[in-house]
């Protein structure tokens, strides 16, 4: 055990910090869930990619620098501490790409990874349906084969940034007579496919951050099938491992928010005096972020030792999503009369954080997974 960073890791941190200090936009970008903000964030992804920072842990041929998992965690710490913009490409990079690395053909990897990493093609997820949310195996969208194409009919919903995305990764029923986990396939669908319509839906903050997707005889070529036909469930579960676990929300994001919260407390205490009750709530949030940090580095060592991420990813998903709510709720309480103001980044962050315990498998589902698959309690 050596919990200090190696000189290579320290040098990597320094390089990232220096680049970010020189390149992070001085003014915050418009919300990525508006048309203009989406394109501003896309332009930022180009800048990151061209400097080699978009996908640090990826192979060089796809625009990465083959950084270790520890280095990626370091990059995330520096990225969020620098106040850099949110990552509009994160659904593709964090959720789809690991699946393409695992299940994609070499042609698919060459076709999709680089444009995804540069933000030239931004991806949205088409999994949930009006009648299939937590119970994902209940999806009904059909996509029977017709020659070398699949023909999609049905509806997807809650597609984050689906109103602006270039591509969709969808879970569909290619065997129309199948039920539950069988007969599903993982299809990559171009946004301009004829017979596909994306309609924006206002999110809790009023912005068109969601889309519903309507498929009406949309034809998708078989070269866009990811993994085997009918094997979509296994392929999709590989993606949920990433979504809940290490890839989507690294500790750096919450460490940075906790540090800002500590700063907010100190700033307000200067004018209003100390408030030990609220101070303790700030400590609680700071502790959560630190606990997540050390648990993640411990997990990194387990993974390096050959262990799978597996169901333990559910621990992380519950922790970061509930921590994010707690952090922002604490900030709003600290702000007193200004807490309800709509023009604060803390309110934006709070509204966004509230989605965390719902998406990527609700936290109730995560607790079921922890109790059944980690602790071994009986399913029924």
């Amino acid at each position, binding site marked *: 055990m050596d919990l200090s960073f190696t000189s290579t890791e320290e040098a990597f941190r320094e390089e990232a910090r220096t680049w970010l200090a020189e390149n992070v936009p001085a003014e915050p970008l418009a919300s990525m869930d508006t048309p203009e903000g989406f394109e501003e964030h896309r332009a930022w992804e180009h800048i990151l990619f061209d400097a080699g920072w978009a996908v640090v842990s990826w192979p060089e041929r796809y625009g990465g620098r083959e950084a270790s998992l520890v280095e990626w965690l370091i990059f995330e710490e520096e990225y969020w501490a620098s106040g850099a913009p949110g990552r509009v490409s994160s659904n593709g990079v964090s959720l789809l790409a690991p699946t393409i690395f695992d299940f994609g053909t070499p042609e698919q990897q060459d076709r999709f990874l680089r444009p995804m990493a540069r933000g030239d093609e931004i991806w949205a997820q088409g999994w949930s349906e009006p009648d299939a949310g937590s119970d994902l195996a209940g999806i009904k969208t059909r996509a029977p084969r017709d020659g070398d194409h699949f023909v999609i009919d049905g509806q997807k919903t809650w597609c984050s940034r689906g109103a602006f995305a270039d591509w969709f990764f969808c879970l569909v029923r290619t065997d129309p007579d199948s039920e539950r986990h069988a007969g599903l396939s993982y299809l990559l669908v171009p946004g301009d496919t004829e017979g596909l319509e994306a309609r924006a839906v206002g999110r809790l903050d009023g912005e068109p951050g969601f889309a519903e997707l309507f498929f009406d005889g949309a034809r998708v070529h078989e070269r866009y099938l990811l993994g085997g036909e009918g094997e979509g469930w296994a392929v999709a579960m590989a993606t949920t491992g990433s979504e809940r676990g290490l890839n989507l929300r690294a500790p750096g994001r919450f460490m940075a928010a906790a540090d800002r919260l500590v700063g907010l407390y100190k700033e307000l*205490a200067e004018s209003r005096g100390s408030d030990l009750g609220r101070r303790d709530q700030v400590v609680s949030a700071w502790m959560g972020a630190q606990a997540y940090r050390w648990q993640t580095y411990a997990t990194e060592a387990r993974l390096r030792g050959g262990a799978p991420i597996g169901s333990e990813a559910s621990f992380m998903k519950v922790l970061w999503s509930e921590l994010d709510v707690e952090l922002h709720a604490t900030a709003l309480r600290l702000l007193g009369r200004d807490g309800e103001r709509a023009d604060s980044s803390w309110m934006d962050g709070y509204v966004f954080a509230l989605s965390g315990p719902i998406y990527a498998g609700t936290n109730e589902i995560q607790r079921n997974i922890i109790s059944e698959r980690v602790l071994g309690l009986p399913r029924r």
Partner: protein
Amino acid sequence: MDFSFSDDQIMFQEAVRDLLANECPPEVVRAAWENDTGRTDGLWASLAEMGVVGMTAPESAGGLGMDETDLVLLLEEAGRAALPEPLLEHTAVGIPTLAEAGGSVAEAWLERAAAGEATLGAGPDDGYAPGAATCDLVLLIGGQIRAVPVGSASLVEHRSVDGSRRLFEVDGDAVVLDADAALAFDRAAAAAAAQCVGVAQHLLDTTVEYAAQRFQFGKPVGSYQAVKHHLANTALKIEFARPAVRHAAWCIATGEPDRSRDVSLAKALAAEAVDLAARTALQCHGAIGYTFEYDLHLWMKRGWALSAVWGDAAWHRNRIAEALGM
């Protein structure tokens, strides 16, 4: 950055776990509740023979020259077994503190302590020293560290809710040690945190086992979501406390500048984990867990005690706030 333990460290942990599984079953813990000393018959000697008791002493004093990163896994095991022996006071605090202090006190006691021939106790200066009557030298830790030989001290005994913990007020002629009292306190807090994690893990494991085989309404109670989520919440607390505790051990071993803050992080998280584990264990067992005959309370009460000593969660949260400049 490497959080993995070495093969030797894992083997040492497994050896201690096996020893405690054989020699420290619940009957032995229960016997310690009822005997004169609160300790076991022979377990300390077995641990000394394995090298555990003196492991933190330098090799020149007959120890193994190991540090907190070696010890932390064994402290977790001690918690898991509810071991009623002074591993915290003697091995985690007493020996490293004497080794740091040097001088005549170390000369008189360190080698004997490393060999397990003399037993070191420890307690906060304004608190109790558990098991002091079975010790030879007690370190009282406050703004400074006072070493009191038990032979010439006056002891006032109090009962703890954990019947194996005999609490003593210690008063007597003391020598002030030339050692860092804040460091000694942190050693104790971090060791208590590691034991809390072990106690919490045992409480969770036994409750999972019980919930899987206890049937009501024709199904195991562990199949009901209300029970599952209690246990998942407990598992979450333990999952996120354990790495912080191991990190705190590393901070002590390497002298990190943020040591005190990060020991507080560890103790606060571990205390909260064991508090929740004790509540959950009792609730999910139902009435059987509320009986004296059933073994659950041996761990619950150890958890209550360890959660509170060497700074409880609230105390450590305040220390974190101060360290962050709030």
